[in-house]
């Protein structure tokens, strides 16, 4: 039997979190070292999975399957395909960098890291789950620590409100999705939650059309789909830096990913039926998020709403239901994950020094923290879809997919949608440029002169690491594109080659 690498990845963080709790609370340095070791270990494991995934062989790999509750058809069934492997890597990357930039947390770091790692277990679990029940199980594991992390370690002004809002939105979303999932379970007559079996259950088109919105929107709430996006920016702003990185970088992908895996893959006919107006909603996401981001004065809200906008592109790519669009969406999930983690890391670093996030009050930070400014510019170029950075590799196929999308009862073609969506990139450029010129260039306000300092070496490692990933994919897309393509092929097979 092969080494159960996926199980190892999934449970290692939770176990590490539990072990952390055994270290005396006042030995903070040891706690941080242990957390860093666990993060690095998770990163190495995920890199290992990424590079040992056999692209040529395609399909699900590293499969493990054990019966759990055979009477109900629930099994522990995990495996990764071309779409989820990059996301596993993404989680490893964010976990590692999240620990690095959380070095300064002084209030109960032990519990903080423990919760963060439980969150990581949930996230890893969702990405690798091949059993519907397992997927929900891990999904809830991922949501629950968010509440505590935000409510305890968050920004004092809004943390209770934000934590509550986030948790309620996500739980309600998952309950709605669960209703759809149970409908599938009982209707299929197979008596199993195994998604590979449910893929071939042969649900009638009427059934699929009815239940698709439940499943899709239930999960898409976590992907920040309009008009259920509002928990997200509030949550981002209230969360501590590492949690924001997880939240925007990985957690939102969880929603999009689950919407794809459970919604589009299990109910393809429903997806085809509802696709046109979902594209319309995602268009709202893209433009609306960008508009709001462009006028926020709080640095973190800008990034929070930019996530709403960019996640709209992910959903839009999936909703095109063709190869190019979904390929772009798959890459966008990874690219945006890394990019937004980088953004939130930068916001956190600026805030730690300035103790304010009000953009008009900041200025000239390039002089004290040049590397941070450079990293933000790299992230900004990614978000503007500049060629040579991963954002272009993601957004270009999405737009190609949009042109290729099948005409429907709602739209004869998607030209106007594409034209409106592409304008959001202009708005994106405007708020990125605004931040670059207001926060990093110009003069340092007098109150900060001498009080703000450069970030430490761990922060720099994290920034360089994240930036490097964005550039590598932009320059050498071959490192990821074929893999995602294999995953997309599998989805297309279920869609009947549409």
């Amino acid at each position, binding site marked *: 039997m092969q080494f159960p690498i996926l199980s190892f990845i999934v449970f290692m963080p939770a176990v590490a979190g539990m072990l952390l709790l055994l270290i005396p609370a006042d030995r903070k340095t040891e706690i941080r070292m242990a957390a860093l070791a666990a993060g690095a270990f998770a990163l190495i494991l995920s890199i290992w999975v990424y590079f040992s995934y056999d692209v040529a062989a395609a399909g699900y790999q590293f499969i493990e399957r054990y019966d759990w509750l055979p009477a109900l058809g629930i099994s522990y069934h995990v495996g990764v395909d071309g779409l989820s492997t990059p996301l596993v890597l993404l989680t490893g990357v964010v976990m590692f960098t999240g620990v690095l930039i959380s070095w300064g947390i002084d209030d109960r770091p032990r519990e903080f890291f423990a919760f963060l790692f439980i969150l990581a277990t949930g996230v890893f679990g969702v990405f690798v789950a091949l059993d519907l029940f397992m997927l929900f199980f891990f999904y809830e594991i991922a949501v629950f620590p968010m509440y505590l992390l935000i409510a305890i370690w968050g920004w004092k002004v809004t943390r209770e409100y934000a934590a509550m*809002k986030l948790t309620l939105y996500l739980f309600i979303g998952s309950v709605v999705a669960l209703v759809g999932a149970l409908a599938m379970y009982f209707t299929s007559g197979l008596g199993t939650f195994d998604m590979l079996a449910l893929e071939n259950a042969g649900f009638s088109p009427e059934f699929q059309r009815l239940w698709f919105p439940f499943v899709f929107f239930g999960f898409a709430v976590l992907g920040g789909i309009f*008009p259920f996006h*509002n928990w997200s920016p509030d949550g981002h702003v209230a969360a501590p830096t590492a949690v924001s990185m997880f939240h925007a970088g990985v957690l939102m992908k969880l929603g999009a990913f689950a919407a794809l895996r459970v919604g589009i893959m299990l109910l393809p006919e429903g997806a085809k039926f509802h696709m046109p107006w979902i594209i319309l909603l995602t268009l709202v996401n893209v433009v*609306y998020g960008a*508009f*709001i981001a*462009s*006028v*926020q004065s709080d640095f973190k809200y800008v990034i929070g709403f930019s996530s709403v906008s960019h996640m709209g592109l992910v959903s839009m790519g999936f909703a095109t239901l063709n*190869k*190019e669009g979904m*390929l772009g969406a798959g890459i966008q999930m990874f690219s945006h994950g890394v990019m937004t983690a980088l953004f939130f890391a930068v916001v956190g670093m600026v805030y730690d020094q300035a103790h304010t996030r009000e953009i008009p009050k900041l200025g000239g930070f390039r002089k004290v923290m040049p590397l941070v400014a450079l990293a933000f510019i790299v992230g900004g*170029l990614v978000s*503007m*879809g*500049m*060629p*040579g950075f991963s954002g272009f*590799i993601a*957004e*270009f*196929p999405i*737009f*190609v*997919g*949009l*042109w*290729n999308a099948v005409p429907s009862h709602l739209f*004869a*073609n998607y*030209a*106007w949608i*594409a*034209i409106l969506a*592409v*304008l959001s*990139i*202009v*708005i994106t*450029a*405007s708020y990125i*440029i*605004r931040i670059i*010129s207001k926060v990093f*260039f*110009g003069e340092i306000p007098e109150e900060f002169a001498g009080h703000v300092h450069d970030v430490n070496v761990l922060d720099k490692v994290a920034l360089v690491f994240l930036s490097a990933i964005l550039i590598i994919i932009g320059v050498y*897309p*071959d490192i990821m*594109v*074929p893999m995602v*393509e294999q995953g997309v092929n599998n989805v297309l097979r279920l869609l009947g080659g549409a």
Partner: protein
Amino acid sequence: MATETLIWLIPLPPLLAFFLIVLVTNRSKALSHTIGVGAALLSWLGSMVVFFQALRVEHLGEHPFLSSINWLQTGDTWLRIGVQIDPLSAVTLFFVAWTIFMIFIYSVGYHNYGQPKGDHDRKGLPPHGATVTDVHGHSHTVLSVEPMYSRFFAFLGLFAFGMYTLVVSDNLLTLFVGWEIMGLCSYLLIGFWYGKPSARAAMIKAFMTTRVGDVFMLLGLAYLYSATGTLNYREIFYNPTVLNELAHSASGVLGLSAAGLISILLFIGAVGKSAQWPLHVWLPDAMEGPTPVSAMIHAATMVSAGVYMVVRIFPLLSAGAEGGHATTAMTVVAFIGAFTALFAATIAVAQNDVKRVLAYSTISQLGFMIAALGIGAYVAAAFHLVTHAFFKALLFLGSGSVIHGMEHGVLHTGNHKVDPQDMFNMGGLRKKMPITFWTFLIGGFALSGFPLVTAGFWSKDEILTDAWKHAPVVFVVLALAALLTAFYTMRQISLTFLGEPRTKEAEHAHETPWTMTLPLSILAFFSITFGWVGIPEYFPILGGIPKALGFTPNWFHEFVHGTLPLLPEGGAHGAMLALAEAANFDPIPLITSLVVALGGLALGYIVYKNIRPEQADPLVKPLGPLYPVLKNKYYFDELYDFLFVRPAYWVAETFTSKWMDRVVIDGILHFFAHLTGVIGNAFRDYFDKPIINELLGDRVADVVQKIGHWAREIQTGRVQQYMIVALVSIAAFGALFYYLLVLAR
């Protein structure tokens, strides 16, 4: 080394220079500029070798140098990236290599290399001068070296990389990569003196305006790719099947064909990059950057990229043209080009800043090229592209030299209120700066189209000739624009160099060092001679000379025309290309170009030859209320602010952010949260408390309690009483059981 390998290598030295300067040598000015200029030299060498190799290939258009590799897999097809040199890229490479190399050299002098460090100079601001004490103990203020000297060469290097990439690319994707790199560098270089608020505003304006064009171009690329599965020039533009299919499939937008919509989307990209109306507003403001930047990016290379791209996509633009009638897309292009040419020329007439005049003139000249493309004269457009790059780079560098000389004067007098860029502060500089004067004169005459001698005459004449043949309206508009061009050019030359100095500063102006004058001389050389390669063979007398000397007559036309060989099955496409054929001799356009060029120059000289100090512009009176309109560029900045910027902010701030997101969506959420509370309270107050609590819970407890109270009466603690109760009970139960078990049976 194979020529193909060499082509791959051309863009790399400046990129390496960029990294080397940024990472290693940025502290040493000498090392940095050596690396920068050295890299430009290498690329120049490579380009020249490739160019002359290309000349030796027969029918280069059909057998270009090609080489490509896989880059990005989308779906089943690969986006391939590669290089190609065909006649069009060869001539573009020629002028790009020359102008870039010249500008690198010029920058050494422009940024005062070898001068002392400034007294108060800070990073992000132009140098303010340094005080030196000479051997006699007198202290002078002299020009000081640029504080961010090394960084400038790094950025220029990155820019050069972008431009070379764009030129040698064999597909629209790599072209777009180069395009975006240049956009970024343009942003960085316009804001090079980021300490100036005006420079910061200009950099943002430039970036955002071109960004609007770029995203439409991206969309056009996405559409083109989704329709054809490739972005390679040869697979699209040289493939009649593909073109035909695109020309005859509807796009579903505004009744355009797919080819029409794609070309218009791509053309919007060019409108942004080449600063055509209505996206022209960024270019004049971009003059906030150092002058070599204005010369290189905003005159010679980057803004040319837009025109170059439209020349590239010409087959697509003209696909579907029936029997010589222009396509809708072409009409759009012709209109925008011609309108911009005239419109920008009128603004240039009323500008006083020496660089802004040139900026508007650039916009206008690019309009000429775009208009030429719109009427199908793509060879003429390419010709004007090349000649314009030479003489406009020359003019900008010349204006930089003038400003430099003026700054020398300003430092001498110490009066910093004098704007060294205002032409009304100059005058008489021909004596102080002879090389600058003569080269500027050549550049200016080329721009005006001074007959027979200058390159600008031949290229502009070709455009006018073609316009006369195919689109008389365009011809009239362009002729008017040409008249204005000659007029404002002579106005500029007269105000700057002729007459007597109008300020003390102008009296003390000084010729600039050889690093600046040498590039001027070389560019002046090309501003004259490059026109000779495109003398039409039908031209009286001169047209026959090349043949007599053994050269190809009208070499440029022959060579570049081969870029788009007539396709055998031609059809509609072939007919359109026939438009681009050299016209036969017709005296009317020739006479027109002679009249407008000479007339405009003469008029400009007469009006401006001797302006006194403090004298107002002689145009103010005759133009009346029109003058402030021109001076303020038709108020386009204000108009855009009113039409786009403010509404966008309103939509974002008031409507979307404050109202939709916070009031409506959050409102609904909070309403439900509140509703939940209300329902909870209702349950609590009207059901939970009265019914469950009081009626069920408390009442039951009350009853139990009462029973307890009552039962307490018998709980006296006296044993005797318990015994009696027990006895009585036993007796009673006994009787009961007896009755039930025995009697009742």
